[in-house]
């Protein structure tokens, strides 16, 4: 359904995108993961045809989005990272305005707005000014505003940033419902647990490049599918770290954390602790990290996703 080929974008001397390619099937939930500044929003902006790339192509349903811009925009819904709503308007007024821009007839618009307000759990606050809403409630309306024209594709750019658990759960319910109804969703986030929970496939983006993509299991297998024994040290010199890494070659140092990768934590953990003790390191804490996207990202880049 969506085909992105060799997308490039520069901001002055900065290469924001360095030839990104991926494809998304109809009804798929695709997660675009990466730290801040990786190029996620630039990618979304180009695919939603408000930003012109310096190179590459994007097509939706086989049609180039630049030669069929209006048509493409009509089938795309975008939930921006910012809460892009008019705070002096009520939720209902906001929904009617944003839906109206897509040519939804007035009577139909009101019906859909009511439906969506119910879906995001804000029917009882429909006529209150958005400025009186909590951050989470605004986020929910922000999502609803992108759904009034019933888009086939929904781009969601970090839709759960800075919200309360209740709103987060409500948004998750909405996401599940939309996915269940067959909507194609591209979801950018740096919350691994969200990607793990919803995404059929995941693309990991860093420094303007997709460094890995596939289903979660595929990503795990491609990366050895090992759990990590994370040991945080209060102090360690190069000699001590070198001794430990020689003892356990499948390990990595990041900040003051030493990651020992293991397929059998139960057996390997006592061995590693004993070796740390022999090397006279000062251990602050030990954490077992099951293989997840965070670990995969760390394996791929040597950095934490939220750095």
């Amino acid at each position, binding site marked *: 359904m969506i085909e992105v080929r060799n997308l490039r974008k520069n901001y002055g001397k900065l290469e924001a995108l360095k030839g990104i390619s991926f494809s998304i099937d109809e009804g798929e939930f695709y997660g675009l993961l990466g730290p801040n500044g990786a190029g996620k929003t630039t990618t979304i902006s180009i695919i939603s045809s408000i930003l012109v790339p310096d190179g590459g192509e994007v097509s939706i349903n086989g049609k180039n989005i630049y030669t069929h811009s209006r048509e493409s925009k009509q089938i795309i819904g975008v939930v921006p990272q910012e809460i892009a709503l008019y705070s002096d*308007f009520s939720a209902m007024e906001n929904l009617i305005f944003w839906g109206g821009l897509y040519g939804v007839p007035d009577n139909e618009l009101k019906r859909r707005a009511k439906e969506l307000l119910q879906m995001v759990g804000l029917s009882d606050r429909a006529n209150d000014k958005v400025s009186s809403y909590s951050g989470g409630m605004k986020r929910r309306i922000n999502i609803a505003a992108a759904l009034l024209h019933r888009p086939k594709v929904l781009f969601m750019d970090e839709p759960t940033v800075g919200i309360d658990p209740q709103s987060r759960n409500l948004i998750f319910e909405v996401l599940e419902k939309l996915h269940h109804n067959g909507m194609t969703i591209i979801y950018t986030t740096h919350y691994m647990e969200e990607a793990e929970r919803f995404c059929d496939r995941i693309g990991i983006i860093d420094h303007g490049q997709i460094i890995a993509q596939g289903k979660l299991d595929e990503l795990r297998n491609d990366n050895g599918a090992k759990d990590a024994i994370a040991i945080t040290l209060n102090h360690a010199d190069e000699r001590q770290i070198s001794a430990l890494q020689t003892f356990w070659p499948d390990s990595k140092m990041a900040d003051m954390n030493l990651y020992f990768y293991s397929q059998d934590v139960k057996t390997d953990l006592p061995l590693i602790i004993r070796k740390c003790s022999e090397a006279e390191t000062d251990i602050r804490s030990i954490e077992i990290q099951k293989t997840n996207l965070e670990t995969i990202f760390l394996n791929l880049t040597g950095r934490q996703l939220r750095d």
Partner: protein
Amino acid sequence: MIKIAIKDLMQFFKQKRTMLLTFLLPIVLITLFAFAFGGIGGGSGDSRISLQISDLDQTQTSKKAAVLFDSLKGLEIKPTELSIAQDNIKKGKESFVLIFKKGFADSVNAGYNPPLELQYDEAKETEVGLLQQSLIPTIAMMPFSLGDPKTTMANRFNNMAGTKDNTERAIIKERSDKLFDDLSAAMSRSNSSGGSAADFLGGNIKMTKLIAANNDNELGLIQAVAGTAVMMLLFSVVGIGSGLLDEKQEGTLKRLLYAPINPLNILFGKMISANVISILQLLVMFVFAALCFGLSLTEHLPGTLITIAATAFACSAFGVFLASFAKTRQQVQGLSTMVVLVMSAIGGSMMPLFFMPALMQKAAVLSVNYWSIQSFYDVFWRNLSITDPSFLKKIVVLVFIGLILNALAVIMFRKNILKLSRGNFF
């Protein structure tokens, strides 16, 4: 485009503080300026110049002269003894005393200028100037007004000739009397309302104010309303135009760009809403002036509406242009305050143009204020019809200014706003 314009209007009317600043503040300022420029209460007795008169001659003629001055509009005559009058001036209670000196009647009867003296407080020289304007025509014609015009005319001719010879003086008088009678007869024949040579001599000089004739409006009031309205409108439209930058900052501009609309429609919608609000603001101000200060709005409705529409078009284009030109709201605020104040100062919003030096009056044509205020003068003061070329020229200039600024706004919007909304996404 219409949806965006309606949205902008809804936003405007939901913001009570903006509404107050748009409508209430200009009304307060109009009221203040209307008082300052004398448009309000201009016809009441309070504004008459107080003139003490000390009659040292105490004759029938001097008393008739006092009555003559008393009949002058704009003067409040106070017969006062000279010493008291002088004391009043020294104490600051009064500004002048006009003294009818002894021999006043004799001079008038002999055809000479009457012996008058005006004593005044030097600190009140501006008032002295105004007083002189009121008194000079009356004083100049006093010999004809107070004495027998026929005799006065003959005496004047004899005085001009300077002869002491009685025969010569008699001849001059005879010829002068004949001239007076011929003039009176001729004027009676040609003028159905009647007349005499005395009228010709200026006893009743008719002074016609060409523009003020049949004018129900006070010049000061028109200046106050038009000048303040345009200046306040410029401030308001900058705020409306700046909404574009708010949209950029709050992310709604980007969301608008996601929609299947032409990006320029966002700007055009803003232009429409700015025009509607501008027209409303001007209408409110003129209706207020009509209701509270008696500005004759209904008699000049077509011209007023055309000028309001043209002014709103030019001013709203100015606001949208500034917002497109600047990159942040802070820039707009700083820039607009400076530009609006300069335009208002040179354009005649803050004070009437005739107070300014010639160079400044020439520079006035560079401001929107000038063309708008002059159009309002055409409508309310000069009573020009809406088809008058002089009026139409000003309207065309306002529309032209609007078109140019709107075109520049489109260019700047593409260059600044769209570019900014598209940058820094990652």
